């Protein structure tokens, strides 16, 4: 257990972040908070990728000719996450736009109130 804590600490944080994100998405009845939960969940995945690319003695991947000057951290997960962050903010923005539309149509951003309003119609 201690060995797990000292060598795989970021992965444990990933598990905790996934749990927190899923908890907010399910438990909160406010749509904006649900989107915050989605972002926390998403960032948990990012932590997994970036920490899997980490090299104890590594430097950031700016190389010279022939790959000299190393060791380096792995560049590939960083590229994937770099694009994922920007796509994530676009996703968040569209989700928030949907929240605004729901408010304009039904006058609420609360999940339970929305269910009641829709049941009344």
């Amino acid at each position, binding site marked *: 257990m201690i060995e797990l804590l000292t060598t795989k600490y970021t992965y444990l944080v990933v598990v905790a972040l996934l749990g927190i994100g899923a908890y907010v998405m399910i438990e909160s009845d406010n749509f904006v908070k649900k989107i915050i939960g989605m972002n926390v969940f998403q960032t948990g995945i990012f932590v997994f990728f*970036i920490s899997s690319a980490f090299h104890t003695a590594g430097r950031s991947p700016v190389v010279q000719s022939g790959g000299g000057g190393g060791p380096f951290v792995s560049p590939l997960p960083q590229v994937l996450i770099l694009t994922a962050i920007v796509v994530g903010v676009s996703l968040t923005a569209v989700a928030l736009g949907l929240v605004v539309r729901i408010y304009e149509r039904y006058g609420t*951003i609360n999940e339970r109130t929305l269910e009641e309003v829709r049941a009344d119609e």
Partner: protein
Amino acid sequence: MSLSVPVAVVLLFMLGSALAAAVIRDVVGSIVAFAGYSFGVAVLWALLRAPDVALTEAAVGAGITTVLFLLTLARTTVTRSDRFEGISLRSGLAVVAIVVTVGATVPALPAVGDPSAPILAGDVSQYYLTNAYDQTGVTNVVTAVLVGYRGFDTLGEVAVVFAAGIAMLLVLRREAFV
């Protein structure tokens, strides 16, 4: 590698602010906690030698996402509360299921920073690091992979960002944008 103090501090800060964002019912407080969490994440990227990702996360997570959340509140309604979120049976079960399932894979993963981990010692990463400069003339391997080796993937990502802008116009019924 054993846990270094700065990384431990940042990880604890991240966990604390994520928990705060989760349990505070006040939406504005939750958004502020989330902004702090994003900043902690950006610092963690810097500590894990990922400066490119850190730059993006600092601008996106702590800056733009927070502003978009606050603007949404300004356009809809804001719920103020002194209370905290409770925990119900369905969310408790879902969280336990996720934590147990994902957590069961953690002992099988290689240690953080282990140089013999497949992702570091494997052929793909080493190929990029060895050949990036000679094949593309670019010293930053992240850029070389982003455009040179995985350019088609990046074109897809740009298309997704572009589509997000169009989707936003449709969702907010502002098709007459221009």
